[in-house]
C-alpha cells in the first residue's frame, strides 16, 4: 500500500540578496523514512529545511506537511513537528530539566515527559546542570531532546553533529537509531558527513548549489556504478600535472588540492587501467602508492561535482 507522503516539496525556489539558495527542488518523503540531505556548506540544505520548518517562505513553489500548507495551519503543524536548528543556544542559566520543562509547557506536557526525554537523550547526570555548563555534545543532545518532546510525527534536524567529536557523534546516532526502531517518526537530517547519511538514513539526497544532484537509497546510488572501481594513488616525484584531464584520457582524474594525491574511477578496468599506466609512463611519473577499492558515496559526490564534500 502506498501512503501519501508526509512531506511534499514541489518546485521550490528561494533566493537571498546575492545568492540563489534553492533552485527548483522537489521532494516527497513517506511516513517513517529517515532522509539525509547531504551536501557541502552552502548547498542550500539549511534554507530548504527552514522552508519545510515554516521559518522561511519559498519565493516560488509549494510545501505541504501531512497535506497541509504552513499558511493558516501554523499552530497545528508546530504540534506535530520537532526541530533542531543549526546551533541554537538556549537560556544559559536555566537547568537542563527546567529547559525541557519550559518546552514541555508549550505542548501542555508535564514532568513525566521531561523525565522520559532526559532518559532518552542520556542526560540523567546533567539534569540539574545549567545549560551554559554543558559540553557541545550534551547541548546537542538537549536540543534533540527538545525536538522530541512532543513525540513529533516529523523530525527535522539541521546538522545535529557538526563540530562534535566522534564519540559525541556516535551518541547522537544511537539516540536516533533507537528512535527509528521504536517510533514511526519521519526524519530529515542535513549533514555533510557521508558516514552519517549512510549509517542513519534509508534515503539519501545529494544537494549542491541549490539543486538535487542524485537521490535514492544507498544501494540505488551506488548501483548505477557498481562495476566502477576507484583507484587512489599518490606519486613519487613532484605533483600530478594540472592539465591531466585535458590530455585525452577516457576518464576523469580527480586531483586533490595539494596535487600530491589523486583518485580516478574506472569503468572498464581492463582497458582503462593500462591507459592510465601508459599516461603515467609517458609523463615519467612514478607511483608511490596505489590502492583499488569499491566506489563509495564520497566518490559519487566527487564524480558529480568535481570536488570532495568537505573541501
Amino acid at each position, binding site marked *: 500500500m502506498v501512503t501519501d507522503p508526509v512531506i511534499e516539496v514541489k518546485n521550490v525556489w528561494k533566493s537571498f540578496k546575492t545568492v540563489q539558495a534553492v533552485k527548483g527542488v522537489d521532494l516527497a518523503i513517506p511516513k517513517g523514512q529517515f532522509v539525509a540531505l547531504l551536501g557541502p556548506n552552502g548547498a542550500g540544505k539549511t534554507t530548504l529545511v527552514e522552508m519545510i520548518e515554516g*521559518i522561511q517562505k519559498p519565493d516560488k513553489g509549494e510545501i505541504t506537511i501531512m497535506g497541509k500548507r504552513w499558511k493558516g495551519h501554523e499552530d497545528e503543524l508546530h504540534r506535530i513537528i520537532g526541530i533542531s536548528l543549526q546551533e541554537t543556544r538556549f*537560556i544559559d542559566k536555566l537547568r537542563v530539566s527546567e529547559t525541557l520543562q519550559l518546552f514541555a509547557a*508549550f505542548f501542555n506536557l508535564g514532568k513525566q515527559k521531561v523525565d522520559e526525554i532526559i532518559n532518552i537523550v542520556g542526560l540523567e547526570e546533567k539534569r540539574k546542570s545549567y545549560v551554559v555548563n554543558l559540553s557541545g555534545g550534551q547541548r546537542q543532545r538537549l536540543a534533540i531532546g527538545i525536538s522530541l518532546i512532543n513525540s513529533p510525527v516529523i523530525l527535522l534536524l539541521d546538522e545535529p553533529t557538526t563540530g562534535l567529536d566522534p564519540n559525541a557523534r556516535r551518541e547522537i546516532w544511537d539516540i536516533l537509531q533507537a528512535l527509528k526502531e521504536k517510533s514511526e517518526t519521519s526524519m530529515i537530517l542535513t549533514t555533510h558527513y557521508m558516514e552519517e547519511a549512510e549509517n542513519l538514513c534509508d534515503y539519501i539526497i545529494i544537494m549542491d548549489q541549490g539543486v538535487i544532484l542524485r537521490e535514492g537509497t544507498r544501494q540505488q546510488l551506488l548501483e548505477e556504478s557498481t562495476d566502477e572501481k576507484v583507484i587512489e594513488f599518490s606519486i613519487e616525484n613532484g605533483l600530478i600535472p594540472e592539465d591531466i584531464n585535458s590530455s585525452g584520457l577516457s576518464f576523469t582524474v580527480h586531483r586533490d588540492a595539494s596535487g600530491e594525491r589523486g583518485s580516478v574511477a574506472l569503468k572498464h578496468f581492463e582497458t582503462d587501467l593500462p591507459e592510465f599506466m601508459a599516461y603515467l609512463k609517458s609523463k615519467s611519473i612514478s607511483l608511490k602508492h596505489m590502492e583499488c577499492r569499491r566506489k563509495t558515496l564520497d566518490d559519487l559526490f566527487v564524480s558529480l561535482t568535481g570536488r570532495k564534500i568537505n573541501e
Partner: protein
Amino acid sequence: MNRWFRLYQLWQLTAALFREIIREPGVLFWGILFPILMSLGLGIAFTKKADVIRKVAVILPNQKSETADSSFILDNFLDLNCEKNNSADRDAYRWKLVLKDDKLGNSIFFFYEMDWQQAMIMLKRGTVNVVLLEKDGNTEYHFDPLNPDAQLSYMKLNGLIGKGKIVVSESNPNIKPLTVTGTRYIDFLVPGLIAMGVMMSCMWGISYGLIEKRSKKLLRRLVATPMKKSHFLIALITVRITMNFIESAVLFLFALFAFKMVIQGDISALILMFLAGNIAFAGIAVFVSSHTSNTEVGNGLINVVVFPLMVLSGIFFSYQNFPGWSIPVIQKLPLTMLTDGIRSIFNEGAGYHEVAIPILILTATGIIFFSAGLKIFKWH
C-alpha cells in the same frame, strides 16, 4: 482547560525568564547595590559643603613708595590678615587666608605672588581664576566675568580687602539652610534615580535581552513551537517590571533609613505612576529591539534612546537651566514625565489629581510602541 493550559504556559515562561535574571550574580550588584551606592555618594556629596580652595595670583608693584603707605591696601591686607608662608619654594603660595563658615562651607584662599606674564599663564591653565593687581594705590581685579567661580572669588575678596580688620562670623546666623524634608538634594535625587532605573532596566533588560535571544536563534526556536508569541513578551515584561519594583523599593527603603525621606503624596498614585513608567519604557524597549539581531547595532539603538533622555530629563540636576524654548519639549519626554510625576508625589504631596494625565500619557505611549513593535517584530 484551555485557559489553565495557557496560564501554565505563561507561568513557565515567566519562571524561566525570572530564573535567568536572578541567577546572574551581576544583577544583584548593578540592579540593587549600585543605585544605593550612587544615592549614598551623591546624597552625601551634595548635603555637606566641603572646603573650597580658591587660588589667587597677586601682582605687587616693584618697589614700595615711601610717601603714601596708606595706598598699599593690598599689601597691608596680605601682611596683616593672612598667614605668611616663608617657604623658599618659588611655586608655593605666599599667603593663606581661611574663612570659616559652617553653612556655606569654609573657603581657603591661597595667594601666589608673580608677575603679569606668569599670572596670565596660570589664568589660562585655570590654576588661578582671579588676578589681583596693585596699581596706583588701588586694587584691580582681573577675571573672566562669565566664570561664576571667578565671580564668587571676586565678591568674597572685594568684601574683605580694604576694610581693615576682617570680620568673620564662624557660625553664620543670617543663613537659614533648608532642611525641611522635600527640599534637600537627596529628595530631588532619589525620585530621579528611581525613574532612571526604570528606563535603564527596561531598555537594557528587555531590548538587549530580546536582541541577544534573537542573535542566539532562541526566538526562532521558541516560535517553532505552539508557544503564543504574546506570552513570551508578556512574560519578559512582567519579569522586568517585578525586578524594577524590587530594585526601586530597596532604593527607597535605603533612602528612608539613611536620609529620612518620606512620601508626602498618595502612595497608590505613586505605584500607578511607577507602573505607567514601566509600561512606557517596556513598550519603547520592544519597539527598539523589534528588528535587529546584531548586539552592536542594538547597543547603538538603546543609547540613542537612553542618552538624550538621561541628559535632558533632569535626573541629577533640574532641566530648568536649559533654554526657555526647550523646556516645554523636555517636559513632554517620557523620562521627564515619569521623573516629575514621582518627584511631585514624593516631595510636593501630589495625588491622582496631579499625576493622572502623565499616567495616562505614559501608559498610552507604552501601548502604542508595544503594538507598533509587535507589528514589525522579527522572530527569525
